[in-house]
């Protein structure tokens, strides 16, 4: 059974079915990009609503309760439903290509991971329509979260549980792909830095997400089944939630930031036309950040009362992370040094990232000083700090990656002019929004308050901050416009528009669904560049043209996720009426039933035959 993808126009239904059933990592990447992009816009709108409420003192744009929902959903959406899936989008699109693999290790799980994320994300947002979304902050501290009325927090718990399961699968999938499926000659120390960072981030997912899973289960039992983990009246302890949440939550920061570092490393090297400076030190720093990232979670809890000994240990450990991060910053600067620099849009984002992220790191060391943190804690200083890190590090990285890998994913190149306009609007808007917030925080403005009083020195700062937020929104609109214009024009580009160095640029854009007709032979770091310097056009194949084994498409991942989505409602509403248990059983039945089908039905994939491959080449 060999199916060659026809390039002719297909009906909407067949395209939809194709995407619902796809197990191709490149299509799943597009699904992640679209879904993550939509949630990014949703989270952005929530942010704008927050800023509009704070534009002037004692504003009444939204009610206090709705404001709580906005800040909760903004944080949750941006971290779990925008940043994570967008990172996964680029990991899916690029990692298999960079290591010279034809697919990921578990195509089925890859698809399942995406659908779980999507239905979990929808679940989270259902709360808006059932009398209020989650309103206990994105950290959902007990007892605020366990006593929050309505179903908002229940949707938060179930939604994150479902999408978290998807993320865990994605993490394991990438680990195994990188361990088992590298092309001949692609040793660990020849892997591009983005692949390395994807590897370390996936390992962090593997070890961090189970703690969140358990935390969410405990919260679910407390809210829905009457257990008493976090309820002092039953002997419970609310601090357990904080530990479990941050044991997950701090590595999560690195799960997001490390792949962004990887993206920038690729971009600096490509557009400086130089090998990445200090490659092995960069790998070492990536691994070290991942390792240290596990031992610092309690710096989010300095004011909980853990005592001076614990606070000191976690403060020192936190500051230690500045060392590998500094190694990275200097290596990027040295990569630029003496290179023939091209100021393309991705490069502009990368250059904007260095000072921005360094400032986030600076304030990071400040808040890491436990005694000083008693002053900063829960103020806008902290808000400014983590936006400098997450937006300045991660979102800049995602924008850079979107411009850098767009040609590889879609075969067209985004307009450089509009791209630069996006950058300047967003970059200026960002600093306008958040730089002033450091000072608002130092002047005593607490985070999460829905109003502030007049004439306390907070008016002007907040107005500036709001203006900046709208500039960022404008930048995003320009990017969307750029995407639409580029795709409508549809000018095809070559496989290697940036004069790239790594394997993904050695194949056409977008790549054929089997990626590599013949697996490439990798002879060093930046394998394509090596071939280029020796006067060859492309990679030397490591094997003759042969039959290629590919996985079958399947609808089961979608069905499994729908089942869990349905079961989620059963879990939530059985607390009102036990008849809802039926919904729970039906949903779990659908999921377990499709798991059984998956287990019983052989799925051996199919082969693209040698003669079809040869025919296509003609």
């Amino acid at each position, binding site marked *: 059974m060999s199916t060659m993808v026809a390039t002719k126009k297909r009906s909407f239904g067949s395209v939809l079915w194709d995407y619902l059933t796809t197990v191709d990592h490149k299509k799943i990447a597009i699904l992640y990009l679209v879904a993550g992009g939509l949630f990014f816009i949703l989270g952005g709108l929530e942010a704008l609503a927050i800023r509009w409420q704070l534009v002037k003192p004692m504003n009444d744009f939204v009610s206090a309760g709705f404001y709580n929902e906005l800040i909760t959903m903004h944080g949750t959406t941006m971290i779990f439903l925008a940043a994570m899936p967008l990172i996964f989008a680029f990991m899916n699109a690029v990692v298999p290509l960079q290591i010279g693999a034809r697919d990921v290790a578990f195509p089925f799980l890859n698809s399942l991971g995406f659908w779980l994320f999507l239905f979990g994300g929808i679940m989270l947002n259902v709360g808006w329509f059932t009398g209020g979304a989650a309103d206990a902050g994105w950290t959902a501290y007990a007892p605020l979260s366990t006593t929050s009325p309505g179903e908002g927090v229940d949707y938060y718990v179930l939604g994150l549980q479902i999408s978290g399961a998807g993320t*865990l699968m994605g993490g394991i999938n990438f680990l195994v792909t990188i361990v*088992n499926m590298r092309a001949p000659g692609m040793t660990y120390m020849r892997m591009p830095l983005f692949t390395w960072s994807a590897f370390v981030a996936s390992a962090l997912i593997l070890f961090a997400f*189970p703690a969140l899973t*358990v935390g969410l289960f*405990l919260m679910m039992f407390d809210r829905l*089944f009457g*257990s008493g*983990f976090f309820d002092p009246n039953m002997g419970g302890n609310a601090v357990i939630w904080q530990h479990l949440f941050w044991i997950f939550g701090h590595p999560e920061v690195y799960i997001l930031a490390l792949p962004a570092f990887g993206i920038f490393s690729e971009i600096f090297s490509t557009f400086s036309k130089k090998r990445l400076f200090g490659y092995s030190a960069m790998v070492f720093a990536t691994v070290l950040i991942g390792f240290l990232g596990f031992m610092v979670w309690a710096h989010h809890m300095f004011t909980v009362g853990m005592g001076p000994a614990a606070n000191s240990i976690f403060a020192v450990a936190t500051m230690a992370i500045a060392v590998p991060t500094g190694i990275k910053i200097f290596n990027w600067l040295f990569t630029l040094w003496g290179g023939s620099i091209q100021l393309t849009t991705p490069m502009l984002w990368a250059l904007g990232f260095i000072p921005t992220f360094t400032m986030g790191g600076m304030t990071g060391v400040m808040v890491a000083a436990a005694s000083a943190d008693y002053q900063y804690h829960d103020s806008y200083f902290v808000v400014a700090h983590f936006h400098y890190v997450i937006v300045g590090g991660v979102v800049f990285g995602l924008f850079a990656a979107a411009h850098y890998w767009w040609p590889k994913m879609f075969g067209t190149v985004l307009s450089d002019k509009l791209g630069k306009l996006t950058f300047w609007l967003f970059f200026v808007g960002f600093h306008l929004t958040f730089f002033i917030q450091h000072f608002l925080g130092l002047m005593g403005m607490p985070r999460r308050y829905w109003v502030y009083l007049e004439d306390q020195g907070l008016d002007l700062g907040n107005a500036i901050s709001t203006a900046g937020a709208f500039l960022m929104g404008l930048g995003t609109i320009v990017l969307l416009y750029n995407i639409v214009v580029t795709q409508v024009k549809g000018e095809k580009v070559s496989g290697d528009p940036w004069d790239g160095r790594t394997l993904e640029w050695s194949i056409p854009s977008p790549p054929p669904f089997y990626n590599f007709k013949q697996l490439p032979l990798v002879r060093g770091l930046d394998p394509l560049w090596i071939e280029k310097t020796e006067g060859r056009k492309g990679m030397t194949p490591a094997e003759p043209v042969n039959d290629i084994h590919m996985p079958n498409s399947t609808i089961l991942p979608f069905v499994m996720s729908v089942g869990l989505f349905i079961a989620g409602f059963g879990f939530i509403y059985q607390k009102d009426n036990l008849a809802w248990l039926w919904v729970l059983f039906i949903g779990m039945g659908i999921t377990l039933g499709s798991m059984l089908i998956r*287990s*019983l039905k052989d799925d051996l994939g199919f082969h693209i035959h040698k003669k079809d491959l040869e025919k296509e080449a003609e």
Partner: protein
Amino acid sequence: MSEHDVLNPKEMPLNPEKGTLEGRNKFVGFWFFLGGETVLFASLFGTYLALNDSVNGGKTSEELFGLELVFIMTMILLTSSLTSVYAMYHMKNNAFKKMQIWLGITVVLGFSFLGLEIYEFTHYIHEYEFTLRSSAFGSAFYTLVGFHGGHVLFGLLWIVSLMIRNAKRGLNLYNAPKFYIASLYWHFIDVVWVFIFTVVYLMGVL
């Protein structure tokens, strides 16, 4: 290697669970998953240890636990671990019938373990009115031990469906990795139980 060779290999390799790339991926991926599961159970153990004295005026672990039943359950589960080792020994020698028999014994032992656990829980609920809602200790106890019990149930359903599905066609390179990782899962369940009987039951009655 074509589909036919995977389902009807001319000869079984020495390690059939790693005979194909898919098999090797499953093998490595499942070990990684077990690494994640370790953190999952650690979070539950940590919660239990933080709350095991928070009895809220209700029953304490000394008053509840009896070691006889736990000892029997432990012996059953440990034995089932050995029987699944035997099953994998025969799998590697391509002795399908023997593998099925040993897996069958494993399943019987697993179900008897599960039966005893259910008996234990109902006993606590009816005799002592000790439930998930009694106290933070109750919540932590039932969640930790119940999570393990849920793993046992899932493992049993998994192994049974593999046995039934492949009963007629015997071993091949497609199902050998499946049997192998199911047995890894079963051993991991035993690993967790070793800590449960030590930390929950033995330390609970001390």
